[in-house]
Each structure stands twice: as C-alpha cells, then as structure tokens.
C-alpha cells in the first residue's frame, strides 16, 4: 500500500482546487491506498466546521461532501499549524478527522515514502 499526500493551499479563493484535492484523496482511498490531505495557507479553512457549506465547484460534488467522505473512509486531514495559528483557527473548530500538525509530521511522511501531489 502506498501513501498519497495531497497538498491543498486553497479555500473559497479557489474551490475547484480544494475540491480536486479531496477528490484525488477519495480515489486513493477507494484504490486501497493510504491518503492524507495536507491543508496549508488558505486551505486550512476547508477543515473548519461550516466553512464548506454551499461551496461547490463546477463539475464536482459539494466540497463538504468530498471532505466528509474522505474523513469517513479513513483519510487523514492535516492542518498546517503555522497557517492555522495566524488565522485564529484552533483544533476545536476543525471537522472530525482533521488534526493540526507541524511541518515535522509532513516531513516524516515524505521521508517514509509518501508521494505528494499539490493543487
């Protein structure tokens, strides 16, 4: 089993990129792979409760559905601590399955063989 690490930097500023990140993550899970979405920069908002309500990119399922399915199927959502802190985002505001992490967590995953894809 491989580990697919998808990096998303976007929130409402580009819902398509955010949606594609979770779509790829869901396909990885549905293909028997381990999957993590690493949210950085504005992308950290995607892991906060209620933020995705009403957001849907053309041709994609609603972003909230994509995120919910990803978490429900065992996908990990890592929220960049360095990006969450200046935005006032805390662990208590995050959707289930999301976790604030630091760079070392992502670096460890990469060192251990995770393959990354960025949107």
């Amino acid at each position, binding site marked *: 089993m491989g580990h697919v690490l998808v990096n998303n930097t976007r929130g409402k500023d580009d819902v398509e990129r955010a949606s594609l990140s979770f779509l790829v993550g*869901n396909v990885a899970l*549905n*293909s*028997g792979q381990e999957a993590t979405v690493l949210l950085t920069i504005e992308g950290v908002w995607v892991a906060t409760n209620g933020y995705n309500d009403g957001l849907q990119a053309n041709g994609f399922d609603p972003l909230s559905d994509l995120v919910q399915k990803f978490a429900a199927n065992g996908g990990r959502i890592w929220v960049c601590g360095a990006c969450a802190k200046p935005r006032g985002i805390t662990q208590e505001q995050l959707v289930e399955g999301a976790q604030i*992490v630091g*760079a070392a*967590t992502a670096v460890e995953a990469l060192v251990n063989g995770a393959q990354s894809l960025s949107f």
Partner: protein
Amino acid sequence: MAHATLDAGAENCGRLIGLVVEAMAQLAPGQTLAVRAYDPSSQIDLAAWCRMTGHELRSVTPIANHLELVIQKAAETKEVSHGTRTGQQHAR
C-alpha cells in the same frame, strides 16, 4: 454474462471510481461487474484502479458510443486503511 451491471453514464474520474467501488462491494469474490461507460478515459482509469486493488479488468468492448468494461472481483480484496493517525499538535 456479468453478475451485475453498472451504467456509469458520462461520469469519469472520482465519481466513476466511486460508483464502481459501490457496485463491486455488492459482489462476492470472483463475480463480475459490467460497467457501461461513455467517457473514453474510463478505460485507462479503471485499468489503473484494478492494478491497485487486485481486481481484474477482464475485457473492454467498444459498443456504439460507449465502452463496456468487465471487471472480476479479486479473491482477496486489498483492504483500505481506515486507521486515523492522531499525532501531537504542533505549531510553528
């Protein structure tokens, strides 16, 4: 004759895989699913998906304006990891 049929319409990419995953879950090991797909990319995507999951893409048949892809469910499905990592909370 396949054990089950899925009309995927024009869906592709993630939605196509999601539909196939749901349909395959209803089958017993060794049974087959016939997928009717109107998006040409379905062939290369489902072939890749089968390689990763252990299922076998038995045939791909062009029929008029769509493809019929027959997938045989693996004897032992590669399990999806449902583990959730709970690491320490870090901050810069």
